[in-house]
Each structure stands twice: as C-alpha cells, then as structure tokens.
C-alpha cells in the first residue's frame, strides 16, 4: 500500500512488521518520532512487544543484550550523542554475536552542539563489529529493516546491524512510501529461533572471560562473519526483490556507471540530489556516474574494484571526517584499491557536516575539481568543501 507518510513513521511501521519481542530506547532528536510511533502502535494494540522506555541509551542497548541472550528479537534506535553513549555496548553486543537491529538517524556529534545531519556518528562506529547499511531514501530505510533482521539472524552470521538513515532529511520528510505488507514480511522473515540461548534446562554462560590463548580466534570469527555477510547482504536484497519487487543493489549500486569517466562514490540521502545532477550533467555531455555504498561494513572492496575499474577519476563525497587523517570512506576506498591494478586519482570531499546542505552547485563543483584532477592538474586530494575562510 502506498501512503504519504513521515519517514520515521514508515520505519516504525516496518519495525512493527518484523514483530520484535523487545524494544528499548531513549528519546533523542531526530530519532524520537520512530520510537514514539512504535510506542503508539504498542498502546493501540497493533504491536505486541515489550517496550522499555529506559533512563539512557546505555541502558537501552544493555537491556537488549539481556533480552537477546534469552532469544528475543530486539530493536532500538538512536543517533549521535546517544550512539556515542552506547559505545561500550556496541562492542559488547557484537562480540557476543547478538543479532540486534538498530536504526541510526544520522546526526552530527558535538561539540559544538548541533542536532542536524551528518554521518560522523555511525561512521565513527565502523570498527565496532556492527554491520552498517546506509539508506538513500525512506523507502530504502523501510525495506532495509526486514533485510537487516534477515542478515543479522542468519545462523552463519549472527551479528548486529545498524540501518543508517540521514536525520531530518529522511526521518522528518513526508514521502510517498510503499508500506510493508505483514503477510509478505512473514514469508520473507521467519521467526527468530536461535540455537544458543540462556536456558535454565541447559545452562550456559554468556560474556565469559577469554584469555590470550583464545581471544584472537574469537575476534577472527567475528571478522570472518562480517566478511561472509557480504554474500548474505546481496542474497537478502535479492530475496526481498522476489517478494516485494523492489531492489536497490546488493553491497553497492551504480548509476550511469558504464562509461563514466568521473565516478562519484558516496552513501546516504545525498544520492538523490546526485542522481538529478548526473542527469543534467549527462545532458551536457559530462561523463559522470555514481557508485552508491549500501553496505559500509562489511566494506565492499571487491565490488568497488569492479565498479570503478574503468573510471578515470573518483570523487568520494562523505559527511564525516577522520580528525588526524582524511575521511573514513575515502581512506577505506583507497586501501581497497592499493593492491589492485587500479591507479586513477581518488579525491575526497568532506561536505554536509552539521546539517549544511549539499546542493547541486556543490556537486557540480566537486565534479569539476575531480575533472581537473583527471586531466592531471594536481590539487589537494582531500578537502573540506566550501570552508568559510572568514570564520577560521
């Protein structure tokens, strides 16, 4: 059923269709509408779940760790400062191999205090062991939600998944969205039946101490599960397409990539603007294309090597920076290319921090700078777009 609906409410509806047993969350802008709508669905008797309104994000995720080890399907949502406060539990839950799903309504991290969108929050958690999927629009955020459970709960994977969607831009926008049909979700996503749970009839210990003789192997198994999740993410998208008819690519997606000389690589909602911009630049004869990252963790190195092999220059646009180095996606991508044969220039742009719009003019500017690099004009290979020099 298609409906014009607020992004947060559409995501809450998708969560409902996944039939979580336990939801635990703490309010924070711009996540709040997602969990408020879920609590409304519970109050209206439409969602049969145990909803905990806890005292902090730390408690939210910790309580889900407890619920998950007894076999419950769990959900939370947060952003920014809230995600930062969950830090210890991010590592704890992924190390325990608990298939939690959490929507991150991406927002800048302070200081300075700011409530608007960028992706510093989840990008900063890239090493925490959580799978990270990034949605381009509300529909994709909706559709990624059952996909996230499918990937997380796969007995071969058992890792928590973040579905990242740009705060305000996607959470607060009203868009026509196909809401998920319950019967289809039920046939796509089977009930969660974990093999290993806390069970008084068959006692086990979770979270036990592991000494140096085994710690590396536990970490390796977690690492290996993420690598193996690459195929599962692709499969989850294809299975979804079979039932729902919608598809957004597997680990990555491309747009006008075939003959693109200038290839933009990015993730999240900015892609909508980039697609429009590509359409108009193509009409002017500029050979520009897009590679969209759907799965940032696991990092789609092989898929990127394939998608980028014919480009003359690559422009990475991202809403984060790695203070003390270049930005995160940029350095990940360069690392993925180094031992391949690909040697085109790779330029990085940090843009859209703390809610600053990335406009069509900005995108054209980045394409122009990249185009000059393609022609051998050396410029800085990493920059903050449009710095206001008068403020520095």
């Amino acid at each position, binding site marked *: 059923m298609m409906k014009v609906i607020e992004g947060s409410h559409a995501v809450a509806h998708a969560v409902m269709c996944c039939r979580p047993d336990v939801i635990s*969350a703490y309010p924070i802008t711009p996540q709040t509408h997602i969990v408020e709508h879920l609590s409304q669905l519970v109050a209206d008797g439409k969602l049969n779940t145990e909803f905990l309104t806890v005292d902090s994000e730390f408690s939210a995720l910790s309580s889900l760790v407890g619920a998950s080890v007894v076999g419950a399907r769990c959900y939370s949502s947060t952003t920014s400062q809230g995600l930062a406060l969950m830090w210890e539990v991010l590592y704890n839950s992924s190390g325990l191999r608990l298939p939690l799903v959490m929507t991150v309504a991406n927002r800048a991290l302070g200081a300075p205090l700011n409530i608007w969108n960028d992706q510093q929050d989840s990008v900063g958690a890239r090493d925490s062991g959580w799978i990270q999927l990034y949605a381009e629009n509300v529909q994709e955020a909706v559709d990624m939600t059952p996909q996230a459970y499918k990937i997380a709960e796969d007995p071969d994977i058992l890792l928590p998944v973040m579905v990242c969607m740009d705060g305000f831009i996607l959470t607060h926008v009203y868009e026509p969205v196909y809401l998920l049909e319950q019967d289809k979700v039920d046939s796509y996503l089977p009930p969660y039946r974990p093999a290993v749970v806390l069970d008084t009839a068959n006692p086990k210990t979770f979270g036990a101490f592991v000494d140096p003789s085994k710690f590396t192997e536990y970490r390796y198994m977690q690492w290996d599960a993420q690598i193996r999740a690459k195929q599962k993410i692709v499969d989850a998208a294809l299975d979804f397409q079979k039932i729902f008819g919608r598809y957004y690519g597997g680990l990555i997606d491309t747009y006008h990539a075939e003959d693109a000389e200038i290839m933009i690589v990015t993730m999240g909602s900015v892609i909508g603007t980039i697609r429009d911009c590509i359409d108009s630049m193509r009409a002017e004869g500029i050979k520009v294309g897009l590679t969209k990252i759907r799965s940032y963790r696991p990092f789609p190195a092989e898929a990127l090597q394939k998608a980028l092999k014919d480009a003359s220059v690559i422009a990475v646009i991202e809403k984060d920076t790695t203070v003390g180095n270049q930005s995160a996606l940029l350095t990940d991508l360069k690392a993925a290319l180094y031992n391949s044969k690909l040697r085109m220039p790779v330029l990085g742009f940090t843009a859209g921090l703390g809610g600053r719009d990335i406009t069509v003019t900005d995108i054209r500017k980045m394409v122009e700078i990249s185009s000059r690099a393609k022609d051998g004009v050396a410029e800085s290979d990493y920059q903050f777009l449009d710095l206001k020099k008068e403020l520095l």
Partner: protein
Amino acid sequence: MRSLSAPAKNTWCPGCGNFAILSAIKPALNALEEEGLDLDRVVVVSGIGCHAKIADYLNVNSFYSIHGRVLPVATGIKLANPDLTVIGFAGDGDCYAEGLDHLIFAAKRNVDITLIVHNNRVYGLTTGQYTPTSPYGFKGRSTPGGTVERPLNPLEIVLSSGGSFLGRGYSHGIELLKTLFRQAILHKGFAFLDVLQVCATFYNMYNYYNQRVYELKDHDASSYSAALKKIREWDYNSEAQIALGLFYQRVLPTYEQSFSHLSPLVSPEREEAIRSTLESYI
C-alpha cells in the same frame, strides 16, 4: 549593580516555569554581588534541554555540558579552581535519568557547588516524554498508554546519599526561589534544589500544584529525621500536600578540603625538614 541579562533571544514557551527560575537567580546573584561576590567568578553549568538555555540568558561565565553531565563538569571546575562559585542548572531527564549516578556521588562527596534542577517532570526539549519523576500512568509521547513505573523521589535519594543541603521550590513563587537560591549558593558543600518548574506546553501542573503547595514553617532543618519525614510526605505520585522550602542543612567537610594542596595535611615547614633530612643522605 551589573545587569545579568544576556542579549540572546529567549525561546522558552509563554508561561514556562523556566522564566521564574531566571527571574529569581538574577536578583539572588545581584544581592550577593552587593555583599561582595565577584560575578566574574561565578560559573553556570547547564545540561541539555529547555532548562539549559538559561546559560544563554544569564550574563555570567557559562558551560553547556552534554546531556546528563552537569555535575561532573561542575565538580571539575570547582576542584580546579576552588575560588569559583559554581552553579549547575539541570533538567530532570538530565539529572534523574541520564546522569543520576552523578547526583548520588556529588551528594556523597559533598562538593561545594549548587545544583538547581528544573523538574518539569517531562523531557521538554524532546517534546514531552516521561521522565523518572513523571507520575505513575503519565501519558507522554513515549508512553501513550501511560507509564507503568512509579516516580522516584529525588530529595530522598540525595538525603540518603549524604546530601548536606536539600530544598524544594516551585516556579510559581519567585520570592521563595530567591531565598532558596541565596541559601544554596552560600551553603558550604553540595546544595541541592529540586524546583517544580511547570512545563506549560507538555505538562501543565499549575492548577495541581497551586492547590497543594505550602511553605515549610517551624521545621527543624537540622534534623535528619524531620527532613526525611517531610520529604516522604509527597512521593511525586500520590495525593498529598507538597512542602516547599529548606528541608535539611548541616555543615560537613567539603570534598575540596580533602585535597592536600588545597588544605595541606603537612605544614610547609615540616615538609622542608623532611626534604633536607632526605637530601643529607644523597
């Protein structure tokens, strides 16, 4: 007398109880200024929430901490520079949920700072969800079916954690607020004030409170048991009269005094004697 009004545009809702707190802290500080308090040595620390904007509206040094962390930041400021007068303004979500542990430890340590909690019993800035002091059954945005938890009584927590100054104010009563703010700032040690600050938009309790509040009279604020009795009279939930005023005050050593360089355990002469003895062996 210095004007304590800052130029920032005020964005609180009309009728918000935060205005009363702002209107009471200014004359309280100005009165202390007349008696010798240097306003440049006053630091305001706020949390994150509607209450926190008070840092923008008061013309003194201020620090916006992250959500829940007013007390650790205020403690750090006080320890690093004990000459400063440190006043924290926190929200109930800020101080009784996210940062409750800090409240217990500030009371336990008896740090010489003042904490004023704008207790509107909702998360105001995030638009009206329940907090730890919302009553049982409270229908907020995150609890449309009514919360199934009972509220906590913050005064009882602070008293049992070793608090040395406890009071309660109400945002419909500026004179009492002025008095309490003054007493709290002058108190040597951790001064805790829970202010029933009405959120006009998400939890308008003016009528409810107006019918139930009364000011403490003939109350022995030096008696722990008398304080506990008064504190337990209303549990933030059931029907009862709501006492306002100073519940408890006693003089205890402050945390800062336990740091040797702030109050030396060993006199400089003795330290010198030890050093020269040791050096004679080199």
